[in-house]
Structure formats: structure tokens, C-alpha cells
């Protein structure tokens, strides 16, 4: 196998040299030989696609560190800044290691199971066995990309999804509890959902659910999991009677900007190629977000308040979340519509409805990612339609697609909710989820990490 690839590579190099204008040689013979070799040799990744996917992967990494760390960190009180950022960083690292051990296997492994099991997980490829630098992964066309690049790209998704949950549990969850919860949660919640939605043979993939970059897998999943874990943890001491204003909206604004920039890797990278579909995802990631940001500020004015910086940041994130499942599945104006609607729904939910419930989702992981994700996932059925400029060919009726999308949302909510309940209880019954009262009052920075963010 290796020999064939080497031979093909040598021939291809020769062809490039010969094709140069200064080299007038019997091109036809070589071309024939290349064609013959191409039939026998496996597909070789296009360097352009590979380069874009490597870039997209590190852009998603930028979303986590420092993007999400600053976004969440700024929203906490100053005594919990380091704890929030460190939990995010450590969670991402843990997710990366687990991904290469068994995560990739369960989500996208080479062994596909027959029957019911295959709807939920795959197998094989444990510790990336059987993968080397020449291995390739399929894209949505005839092209391939290097498998290590695909594995890395998907790795960052697992890492950011686990980190997103920490917004709901901030300022009171033990560091050790986070480290114990994340591996269990990834294994029983994230990997199966990623398989269901994105892997061939997966339950929702085969059902025809549209989720371009992770509206269900990442955002509804993280939002619902955060909500359940927030319930298990209980409210922060003093919430909601004591003021807990964000300690630095400047950091939150910086984090918002980094998240937006990184999100181009997240959304446009989900095309798995540097093609037109990636371009569509890119423009949608601009315009839906812009619409979401301004809509939130307009909603604040309409409610009789001032248009705020935090409102702007919240609207940016809602727009990004909502356009995630629709990124390559919508025209630009459908994406704007989605950004506007999701922003309005999330504003009403976070600013008005949330207070009526008794839970403490510290940084609104559910209110923004969960609710925005649900609006985006269901709305994708609408904006996909050709009458709104979507890329759909109209072969699936709007009603039928809506049914498929709602089903995928419900499955994700149920799976994430139940899985988090199991993982959360396991940790609660063994090492406990929450820091003690004194540690919480002193702040998690000093009590959990022995440092202060600001001296």
C-alpha cells in the first residue's frame, strides 16, 4: 500500500514538473501513467483543503482558549476569574486526551456496528490504531482530507462542548468534580450524540436531520447538560438576592470577539473543504451574528432599558449559536432572519422568563446555547428551503423537514438531560460536586487554586 502511494506521489511530482512551460516533454505518456496510478492508489488529500481544515481546527482552539475563557471569566466575580478560566482550559485538555483514546472511536471509529448499536456509537480505531499520516477521511464530495486533520478538527468540538457546560456551573463547582464529570459525560453523552448526528449510520444522520456545524451536538447538548448540572449543584450562595455583576465586561467583550473570529473555523470548517459551501457558511456567520447583536440591543431599548455592552455580546453569541446548524444550510437572508428571531427569543428567555424558574445557570449556558440552539436547529428547516434562498432543492417538504429537526432536538435534549443526570449523580455521590461554604465565599480562585487573579 505504502509503495503504491510513493509511486503515485513520484509520478505526480513528475507531472507537475513536466507541465511547467519550460519543460516541453512527452506529457501524454506521463498523464496516462498518472491516470493508471490514480486508479490503483487511494485518494490523496488536496493540500488546499487540508490547509484550510488545519486553519479551521486552530480557529476552534482559539474559541476555547482564550475566547471562551475570557468570555465566561469576565462574567464571573473577580474572586472566581481564575477558577472559571482554569476549568475551561483543563476540561479542554482532558477532552483532547480522551478523544484520541476512545472518543474518536465511539463517534467516528472505523468499525460500524450493525443494528441498533450502530445508530448510537461506532467502534475500532481505539488509541487511533490503524491511522497514520497517509490515512484519509471522506468529505462531502469525492475529495478527502488527512485523517489526522479530521480527528483534530472533531477533537476541538468535543473540547469546546464540554467547556461550554461550565458556564452553568461557574463559581461553585469543585475543580476535582469537573475533572471527574467531564470524562463520564463525554463518554455517555457527547460521543454518542456526535455519532448520531454526524456519522454515517447514526440515528439522526440517517433520519435526515440538518446540523451543519453542531447546533444539536454542541449547543443544545451543552446548554441542556449545563441546566441539569446547575440543578444538581444548587444555586450559588446569595443568588438571586445578592448582586453578582460581571467583574469585567471588557474581558467578556474581548472573549466575544475571539469567539466570533474562531467561529469561522467552527462553521466554515464544517464543510470539511475550502469550497463554496464553506464560503456560504462564512458569510452566514457574519450576517446572522450581526443581526443577533443589534437585535438584542434593540430588544433592550424596547423593554425600556439602555442598549448594553453585555447585550451586544450576548446577541453576538446567540447569532453564532443560531446560525451554527444553518451555516451551510441557509442563504444569507435566511441566516439574518434566524439571527433576529433567536436573539429575540433568548433575550425574552434570559431577561424575563429565567427569573421565574428556581435554577441558577450562572452565565446563561442554557439561556444562550440551549435556547438559541433549539431556535437554530428548528429554524434550519425553514431557512433551508429554496423560497428563502436556502440551498435545499425543495425535495423535502418544509413540514417533513420541520418534523425531522424537532425530532433531532428532542432526542438531543432527552439524551443530554438523562446522561448528565447519570454523570452528575455519579460524581455527586462519590467526591461531591460543590465546594464548601467557606471556599465559595472566599472565591474559588484562592480556595481551589491558591491564587488570586488580581494582586
Amino acid at each position: 500500500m505504502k509503495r503504491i502511494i510513493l509511486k503515485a506521489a513520484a509520478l505526480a511530482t513528475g507531472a507537475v514538473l513536466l507541465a511547467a512551460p519550460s519543460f516541453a516533454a512527452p506529457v501524454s505518456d506521463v498523464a496516462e501513467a498518472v491516470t493508471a496510478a490514480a486508479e490503483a492508489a487511494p485518494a490523496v488529500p488536496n493540500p488546499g483543503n487540508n490547509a484550510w481544515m488545519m486553519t479551521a481546527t486552530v480557529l476552534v482552539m482559539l474559541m476555547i482558549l482564550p475566547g471562551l475563557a475570557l468570555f465566561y471569566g469576565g462574567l464571573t466575580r473577580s474572586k472566581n476569574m481564575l477558577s472559571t478560566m482554569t476549568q475551561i482550559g483543563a476540561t479542554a485538555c482532558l477532552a483532547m486526551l480522551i478523544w484520541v483514546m476512545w472518543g474518536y472511536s465511539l463517534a467516528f471509529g472505523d468499525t460500524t456496528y450493525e443494528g441498533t448499536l450502530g445508530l448510537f456509537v461506532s467502534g475500532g480505531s481505539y488509541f487511533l490504531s490503524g491511522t497514520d499520516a497517509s490515512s484519509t477521511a471522506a468529505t462531502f464530495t469525492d475529495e478527502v482530507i488527512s485523517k489526522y486533520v479530521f480527528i483534530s478538527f472533531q477533537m476541538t468540538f468535543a473540547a469546546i462542548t464540554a467547556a461550554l457546560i461550565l458556564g452553568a456551573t461557574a463559581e461553585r463547582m469543585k475543580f476535582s468534580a469537573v475533572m471527574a464529570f467531564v470524562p463520564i459525560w463525554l463518554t455517555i453523552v457527547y460521543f454518542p450524540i456526535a455519532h448520531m448526528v454526524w456519522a454515517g449510520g447514526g440515528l439522526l444522520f440517517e433520519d435526515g436531520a440538518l446540523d451543519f456545524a453542531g447546533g444539536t451536538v454542541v449547543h443544545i447538548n451543552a446548554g441542556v447538560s449545563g441546566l441539569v448540572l446547575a440543578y444538581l449543584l444548587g444555586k450559588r450562595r446569595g443568588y438571586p438576592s445578592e448582586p453578582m455583576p460581571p467583574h469585567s465586561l471588557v474581558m467578556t467583550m474581548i472573549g466575544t470577539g475571539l469567539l466570533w473570529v474562531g467561529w469561522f473555523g467552527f462553521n466554515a470548517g464544517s464543510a470539511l473543504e475550502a469550497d463554496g459551501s464553506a464560503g456560504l457558511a462564512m458569510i452566514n456567520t457574519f450576517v446572522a451574528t450581526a443581526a443577533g447583536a443589534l437585535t438584542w440591543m434593540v430588544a433592550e431599548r424596547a423593554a425600556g432599558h439602555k442598549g448594553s455592552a453585555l447585550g451586544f455580546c450576548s446577541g453576538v453569541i446567540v447569532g453564532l449559536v443560531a446560525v451554527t446548524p444553518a451555516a451551510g444550510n441557509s442563504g444569507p437572508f435566511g441566516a439574518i432572519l434566524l439571527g433576529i428571531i433567536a436573539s429575540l427569543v433568548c433575550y425574552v428567555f434570559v431577561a424575563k422568563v429565567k427569573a421565574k424558574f428556581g435554577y441558577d445557570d450562572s452565565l446563561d449556558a442554557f439561556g444562550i446555547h440551549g435556547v438559541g440552539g433549539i431556535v437554530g436547529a428548528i429554524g434550519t428547516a425553514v431557512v433551508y428551503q429554496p423560497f428563502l434562498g436556502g440551498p435545499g432543492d425543495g425535495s423535502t417538504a418544509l413540514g417533513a423537514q420541520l418534523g425531522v429537526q424537532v425530532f433531532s432536538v428532542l432526542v438531543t435534549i432527552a439524551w443530554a438531560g438523562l446522561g448528565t443526570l447519570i454523570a452528575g449523580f455519579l460524581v455527586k455521590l462519590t467526591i461531591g460536586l460543590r465546594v464548601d461554604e467557606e471556599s465559595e465565599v472566599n472565591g474559588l480562585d484562592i480556595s481551589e487554586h491558591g491564587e488570586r487573579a488580581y494582586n
Partner: protein
Amino acid sequence: MKFIIAIIKPFKLDTVREALSGIGIAGMTVTEVKGFGRQKGQTEIYRGAEYSTNMLPKVKLEIAASDDVAAQVVETIQSTANTGAIGDGKIFVLDLASATRIRTGESGETAL
């Protein structure tokens, strides 16, 4: 000698300082402080969560003055820091027992 403490709105500091220089006041101590009085605090809103802060930022001036200019100092601060709105602040006057200039050891009004 009198010791004058004035709590004023922060944006009036420069106007008051210039006016006091104009009547020969050569020194003062200025501190940023927080407090409340009849003026209610302000409301902050973060994603719909409303917090009313009852402490407002003010500036505190401390001025030591001889008996004959003390009344003029009070009057100058009162007229320049005045906006007519609630929250303009207060002026307190205390008797000052002694004053000493650390560098020379002078005491009494010559130390002011």
C-alpha cells in the same frame, strides 16, 4: 483655625479647585469616596438582572483654613459645586486644634 470637609460631585472638582485657588487656598487633600444621602443610587442591569447600587461615587475635599477665610471657603465651595440637583453634597466645618508643618516644625496658622 477651621478644618473644612466638603463632599461634592466628582465632575465639579476642577471648578471648585480653581475657585479655591482664586481666593488663596494653596492646598487641599482630595479623596474619591462612596456614600449615600437623599440622592438614591443608580440601577445597573446585566442580562435582565437589575441591581440598584445605593452607594454613589463622590469626591471628598479636606481643607485647613485660618478663621478669617473659612467662611469664604465654605461660600466658594457652596456656590461652585452647586448644580441645583439632589446629590450636590455637603460641607462640614470643624474647629482645628493645631497644625504643624513637618519639614520646618512651624505650627499654628503659619503652617497652613
